[in-house]
């Protein structure tokens, strides 16, 4: 009950401020970190989006705008393009004293800057990821680590989507209760996704490195009312597809950012709860069984939900 109260308060504050993108955080209780982003223009397609997520360890995690634990996300606009993206820093780096969140956050913040500076081709989302990755090398302070990433560009004039995905983050597009498009997961082997990485000097041979060009790209047209879910594996590994579709269906054609925020919150909460449910046969556990690993229960992970509806 309290969480609904909090969310409501955050949202009303967001609306009061009346700005395109608003973010806030509350660290103490398990409050969702909510963000509302909205826009509308006649005839041109646009995205009405909301963000919700949780860091895996609520107590120890840093709270920063655009980040949930090692996950990071961004929304940005430039002329006729709207871009949203998520990235999931690979947690294994923590053993080497490297903060995995730095890498994914840098990747997303740089995408955001590149988009708002207009330094990208709207038809080449993989190119955007590549440029963002390239900027890592231009940083004086080395930012080491690796990350999965998924970026979606909406061309407002042609109502088409261009998407690029590296690794196991991804997106789902739901229209009239059906999944019409989804990203394909890229894995080297079970639980080891494709990743962009910058290893410490001298370790390049020991680290999985996939080039930004190896991204899985797709493009398709969207219709008014389509619902797009862009999320990290913390969501897809824990929430079965059918549950996602049921939730997403509720906001088909919805233009009220508050309602979209509610569903984003629900999905994030669901993922969070299932992740810590030991007895639940999660999609992750199923996948593990298919790979001959006897597993059950959810997979505790950082969770980022970026939910958007298309308004034309």
């Amino acid at each position, binding site marked *: 009950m309290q969480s609904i109260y909090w969310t409501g308060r955050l949202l009303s504050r967001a609306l009061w401020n009346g700005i395109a993108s608003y973010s806030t955080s509350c660290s103490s209780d398990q409050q969702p970190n909510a963000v509302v982003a909205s826009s509308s223009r006649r005839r041109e397609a646009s995205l009405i989006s909301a963000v919700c997520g949780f860091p895996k360890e609520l107590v120890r995690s840093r709270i920063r705008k655009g980040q949930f634990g090692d996950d990071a996300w961004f929304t940005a606009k430039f002329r006729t393009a709207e871009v949203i993206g998520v990235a999931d820093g690979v947690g294994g780096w923590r053993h080497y004293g490297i903060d995995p969140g730095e890498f994914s956050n840098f990747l997303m913040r*740089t995408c955001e*800057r*590149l988009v708002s*500076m207009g*330094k990208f081709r709207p038809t080449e989302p993989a190119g955007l990821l590549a440029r963002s990755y*390239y*900027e890592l*090398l*231009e*940083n*004086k*302070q*080395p930012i080491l680590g690796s990350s999965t990433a998924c970026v979606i560009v909406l061309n407002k004039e042609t109502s088409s989507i261009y998407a690029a995905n590296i690794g196991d983050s991804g997106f789902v597009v739901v229209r009239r209760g059906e999944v019409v498009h989804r990203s394909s997961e890229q894995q080297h082997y079970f639980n080891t996704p494709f990743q962009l990485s910058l290893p*410490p*000097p*001298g370790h*390049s041979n020991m680290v999985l490195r996939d080039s930004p060009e190896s991204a899985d790209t797709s493009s398709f047209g969207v219709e008014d009312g389509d619902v797009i879910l862009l999320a990290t594996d913390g969501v897809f590994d824990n929430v079965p597809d059918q549950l996602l579709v049921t939730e997403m269906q509720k906001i088909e054609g919805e233009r009220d950012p508050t309602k979209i925020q509610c569903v984003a919150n629900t999905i994030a909460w669901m993922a969070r709860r299932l992740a810590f449910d030991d007895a639940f046969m999660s999609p992750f556990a199923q996948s593990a069984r298919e790979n001959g690993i006897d597993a059950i229960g959810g997979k505790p992970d950082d969770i980022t939900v970026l939910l958007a509806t298309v308004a034309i």
Partner: protein
Amino acid sequence: MSHHDQNRKISKKELNRSEFTVIEQFVDNVYSFSSQYGNNISISYTAPNIIGPPSKFPEYGDFPQAFAMRTYGLWWDKAPSRSIDYMPQNNPDVVSQDYIDIEYREPVYPIRVSIYELYNPGSVIAIWAQDCYGQWFQLWSGLPQIVTQQSRLFSPPLQLCNFKTKMLRLEFNHSLLDYYTELDAVSLIGTSEMMFPKDPSNKRNLSDLLQDTIYGHFNNIADHNLTPHYENPQQNINNLKVILDEYYTTYESNNLQSMLISDVEQIYHSIPPIEEGLNNMQQFLIKDLPRFVNNVEASSNEPKELCGNFSILSIETILKILKKLDLKSLYRISRVNKYFYNLALDPLLYTSLNLKPYWHSFNARTLHNLSLRCKYLRRLDLSWCGNHGMFSATSIKEFLIECGSLLTHLRLNCCKNVDDSTIYQISVTCKNLKELCLRNCQSIQDKGFEYLENLEFLERLDFYRTSIKTETLCKILQKNRWLRHLNVVGTFQDNINIDIVAMELGRSCPNLESIDFWKAQTLTALGINALAACKNLREVDFSWCGNTSGHGETLVKLFSCCQFLEKIFLATFRGLTDRDLKGLTQCKHLKQLDLLGALSLTPEICYEILSSCPKLELMDLSFCDNINNFYIEKLRQEYPHVAIKRIMDYH
């Protein structure tokens, strides 16, 4: 004038009060610039970062989101590759080393320009505004400053500008900087209408007034800054509007007539009444003019008498003296009389020309005029000139045909209109060329560079931020065995393979002294190995080339082969190890060493280098994570004569 009258006038202007607006804008576009720290294809530390509102201000520190330039302090002037000005007497007290031309959307009458300085402030030395005809006007100039290490909103007091502008130029001098300066944004605050003081006896301009109001509050005159307290820039603007409303009015055309009739007398009370003017004129016609005519006649008949003692000197001595004069003075003395006119025409006075300080006023006419005097021209610096339509490629070509045959040194840095045909002319006319600097000449295509294969005596080539290609460059290198200095920084990555260039250098240019490969990511161990054949190397800049893994014996070999190395820049060779640098202890001439971002270096190797290289002056150990601040302090204490740099983490 009666008291009543005065009141009426003010109330009349009061009516027009609301007809101006104060507009604050941030940079809309970067038109051109002379250098940037970042790479063409990147957004980190590049010039376009100055566009838009500040992104980091008032944070202080090193940010990739800022605009940074390539140099700081005097280190580049001390390096083997330094270039010396041909005609230093032309330079003002402070030389502009870098510039950036920034465009705004809305033209305004400028009142305030505020520069958001993020890191190491104090290097802005001039602000210019361009009118709609392309003419430049200096709004402010000052000395480089040493200021406290914190972010600064710098708004120098401006000259009154009587035209609308939307293009500004900032000029920089980095000589006093401790480290790279970084800028976040530049705001231009101006009015939509020209503002005039309400009280006509108040002759001071707006900036003065602003200065008074600020200094009245804060008593801080030292930095000539109108915004010493940046906490609330918006408050500043509101204050400004209030001040404007209170003291100033617009120059309305419907107001003009009444102004002319009633106010002119009062505003320009220095103008004498018309009767007095007539009298003066009569006096001049009767008395002074005949005397003047006589004098002129006398000067043409007996030149020597009029030159006083000067003519006693031998012509060689006189020329020697005149050679010390700057170009402006040379032109001025030619107006004294025929004798000096003839003297000032002597082509021997025009063997070295530096026109860069006159970039704002040099046009096709002045260039043509100059060509009549430059029969023996050997060294010419046309850098920064000719842009914004001041003169065309044809003008340069004509000048070269006229006076280019003896040229040995030619600098055309940042000349946007230097194109393929200009290069062709150079290759045909200037057969003896030793130095050719084409920094930022982006109109030259690969075809243009091919013409340079005709030259054979080149010793210095600067291709900073041009589009030269590997094959062309290699052919030029094959022909020019005497090459000593080469800069190929910021050439477009797709065009050039630095490894192949380095191998060609190793084969063809045994006299190579300095090489600048900054941020050339195609350089690998292969290229560095090949360069070891150039035994006379004194300066290498491989910074930001170290992303390729593994250096093996490469650097060890380079350091042992090239014993004369004075400057070695290896920034972001992340994997650099102590072993790679052992060879440096043999480089007894080493003066400057940049090791930024070398993650695994230990304090021991730093001690070793510092103790075995007695001439070392500069060492950059920023982001060397294995050497903590404690050791840095210790090194600084033990080697106080070495500037040991480290970017502090202020975030």
